[in-house]
């Protein structure tokens, strides 16, 4: 994964979000505004078109009415030529919106001599002029204004045309057929025409201005431009020729729609580089003409576009600002962090005295820096303590090792102990659970004839037990040398131990004194494990306890002495509970039963053999489990007086 700094991440994320938000806002605003404008424009154009078409329709319809009325009145066959002429003139004078009116009859209708009878009154230079239409060069029977109502038998508006006489003004004519009854049959008699100038129309429509370049135009029934801001188009082009020249299929289709009668608001594609434009078109009620109102799209939306552009620019400026601010804030965070990170590396490499960078900002980063300093100081202290503790520990351990040596030193370790004496052999082994232990053994000559050997077990293990053990051993030696009975020895030692024994430590003891000539062995037992007497021949037996309690508790306790006689070859095996209570990993005890069993299996072992063998057995049993108690074993074999 590529590594990106916090500043980068923050900037990217925030900017992306901000961008999305901005884009959404601007975009939505833009489209909504455009939508609103579009709808408004459509509505406005509808109103405008309606207004315009209504005005135009009003004029056209009033003209129609006049012409229709005249046509109706001409159905009266009793009208004379003069009356007709008079009527013709009066209509013109009374109807200022009508430019000219003709009443044209079918050939020879009114006068059998005359082919043409078509009086025509019209305005000219502020006066009403008269002319009689119809001549070889003006055979009106085949002109649209005559022929169409005749063939269709209904009134129509002709296509607008340019009046040559009237100085190029666009005109349109409403022509109404009239009928008379001849020989009982209703026949076509002629037409009444009303000409109107479309100058006022051009004027009205050219005044329609929409935005800057919007405009309105009028199409004739066949799509010819009646009015248009571009005068070249008027009467020359139809909307379809325009479409053909611009190669726009869409324009042709729209032209057909316009003349087809729908009112609608459509988007015109870009034609001849004019850009996209909206067109509202509506059909007039009279004349079959169509009005079109053009809205330039760009201008319509100019405001919105401009607004959106400005909004975007503001947004972008905001972005730039945002970037700056974010980077600033990010730096405020990352710079201290980078410093702390560097400091952490330094400290990790061991430099605990490094001065941490000054960071005093009152925020999370400042808190972090403070915690860092606190941690560094704590670490320093801790390591200092650890160092001193370790030093202390090592010191203690070394002292313990020395203590062990001393402790072991006070126990007789040299074997064979009395090589020159064959009357007996004694062998002992001791394994403290810790560096120093609470087990003890000793053996020594009380006097020339009596040999004392003992085993003891101080409660607990470790240094406290070791102290007690040293004291006990010393006491025992000193008191035994007085030549007392074992019981008396124990009584005396117990009394000394029990005095000022605040710690409630006690010691189990088994002490025996043997007459090396006779083999008589006196012994005392203070709460100690029953030793085993292994006769030369026969089964090994437990030496039963005497019921005397452990030593060191009850000051006034008197201990009993018992005795047994050893015959040559007998072994007395004394041990501490470290043997019987040796545990395997499952916390199963070695137990007295196993001890006895093992001893029974041995065949006349020597003292050393016995001890070593048992040692092996115990080790095999414990399977490497941690030694829970001191293990001490002493074997004394009586050989009797040997003949030299």
């Amino acid at each position, binding site marked *: 994964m590529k590594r990106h700094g916090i500043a980068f991440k923050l900037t990217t994320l925030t900017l992306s979000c901000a961008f999305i938000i901005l884009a959404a806002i601007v975009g939505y605003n833009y489209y909504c505004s455009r939508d609103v404008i579009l709808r408004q424009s459509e509505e406005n154009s509808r109103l405008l078109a309606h207004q315009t078409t209504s005005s135009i329709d009003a004029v056209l319809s009033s003209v129609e009415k006049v012409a229709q009325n005249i046509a109706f009145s001409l159905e009266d066959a009793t009208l004379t030529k003069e009356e007709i002429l008079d009527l013709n003139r009066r209509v013109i004078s009374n109807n200022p919106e009508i430019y000219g009116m003709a009443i044209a009859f079918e050939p020879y209708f009114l006068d059998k001599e005359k082919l043409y009878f078509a009086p025509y009154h019209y305005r000219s230079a502020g006066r009403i002029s008269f002319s009689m239409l119809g001549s070889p060069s003006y055979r009106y029977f085949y002109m649209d204004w005559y022929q169409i109502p005749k063939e269709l038998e209904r009134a129509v508006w002709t296509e607008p045309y340019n009046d040559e006489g009237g100085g190029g003004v666009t005109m349109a004519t409403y022509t109404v057929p009239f009928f008379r009854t001849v020989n009982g049959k209703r026949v076509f008699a002629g037409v009444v025409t009303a000409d109107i100038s479309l100058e006022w129309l051009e004027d009205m429509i050219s005044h329609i201005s929409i935005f800057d370049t919007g405009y309105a135009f009028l199409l004739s029934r066949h799509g010819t431009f009646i009015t248009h801001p571009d005068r070249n188009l008027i009467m020359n082009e139809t909307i379809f020729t325009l479409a053909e020249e611009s190669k726009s299929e869409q324009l042709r289709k729209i032209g057909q729609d316009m003349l087809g009668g729908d009112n609608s608001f459509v988007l015109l594609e870009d034609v001849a580089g004019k850009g996209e434009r909206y067109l509202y078109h509506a059909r007039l009620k009279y004349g079959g003409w169509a009005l079109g109102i053009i809205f330039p799209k760009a201008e319509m939306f100019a405001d919105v576009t401009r607004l959106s552009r400005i909004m975007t620019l503001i947004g972008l400026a905001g972005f730039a600002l945002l970037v700056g601010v974010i980077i600033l804030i990010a730096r405020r965070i990352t710079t201290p962090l980078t410093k702390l990170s560097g400091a952490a590396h330094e400290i990790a490499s061991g430099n605990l005295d490094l001065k941490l960078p000054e960071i005093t900002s009152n925020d999370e980063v400042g808190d972090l820096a403070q915690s860092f300093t606190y941690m560094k100081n704590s670490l320093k202290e801790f390591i200092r303590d650890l160092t001193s503790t370790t030093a202390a520990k090592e010191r203690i351990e070394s002292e313990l090792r020395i203590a062990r040596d001393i402790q072991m030193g006070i126990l007789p370790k040299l074997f064979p102990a009395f090589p020159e004496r064959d009357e007996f052999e004694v062998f002992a082994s001791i394994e403290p659970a810790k560096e120093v232990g*609470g087990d003890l053994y000793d053996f020594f000559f009380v006097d020339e004839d009596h040999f004392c050997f003992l085993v003891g*077990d*101080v*409660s*607990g*293990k470790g240094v406290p037990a070791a102290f007690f053990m040293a004291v006990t051993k010393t006491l025992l030696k000193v008191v035994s040398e007085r030549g007392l009975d074992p019981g008396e020895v124990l009584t005396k030692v117990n009394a000394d131990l029990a005095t000022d024994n605040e*710690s*409630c*430590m*006690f010691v*189990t003891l088994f002490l025996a004194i043997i007459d090396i000539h006779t083999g008589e062995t006196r012994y005392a037992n*203070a*709460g*100690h*494990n*029953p030793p085993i007497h292994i006769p030369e021949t026969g089964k090994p037996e437990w030496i039963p*306890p005497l*019921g*005397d*309690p*452990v030593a060191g*508790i*009850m000051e006034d306790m008197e201990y009993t002495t018992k005795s047994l006689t050893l015959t040559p070859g007998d072994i007395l095996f004394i041990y501490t*509970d470290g043997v019987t*209570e040796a545990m395997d990993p499952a*916390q199963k*005890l070695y137990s007295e039963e196993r001890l006895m069993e093992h001893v029974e299996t041995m065949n006349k072992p020597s003292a050393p053999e016995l001890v070593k063998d048992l040692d092996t057995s115990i080790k095999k049993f414990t399977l490497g489990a941690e030694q*829970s*108690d001191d293990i001490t074993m002493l074997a004394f074999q009586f050989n009797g007086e040997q003949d030299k």
Partner: protein
Amino acid sequence: MEFTNTKNGDKLVVAVTGRLDAVTAPEFDTQCKSWLNDGENRIIADLSNLEYISSAGLRSILSAAKQLKTAKGEIIFCGLNGMVEEVFTVSGFASMFAMYPTLDDALAG
């Protein structure tokens, strides 16, 4: 090692289960101190479910007995069996303290 205490009149019956050795002995000491603080000085230790006791355990019993003696109280034992009974016998503790076979005997006695 676990203790279950039940008050029975003015005597506190404490059932000790598990092992009382060098590891758990300090716990026993602490417990005794707290019992003494609570004013209990007549303790019946029911050792029916005590599987093992080491010399450290014996020592803590001694210490407890000594404290109770100072507080004019006492500790008696019941339900000893197996290895624990042997140790008590061999060490002579059986003759130092009052031992009863069952709890009821201890309560009665």
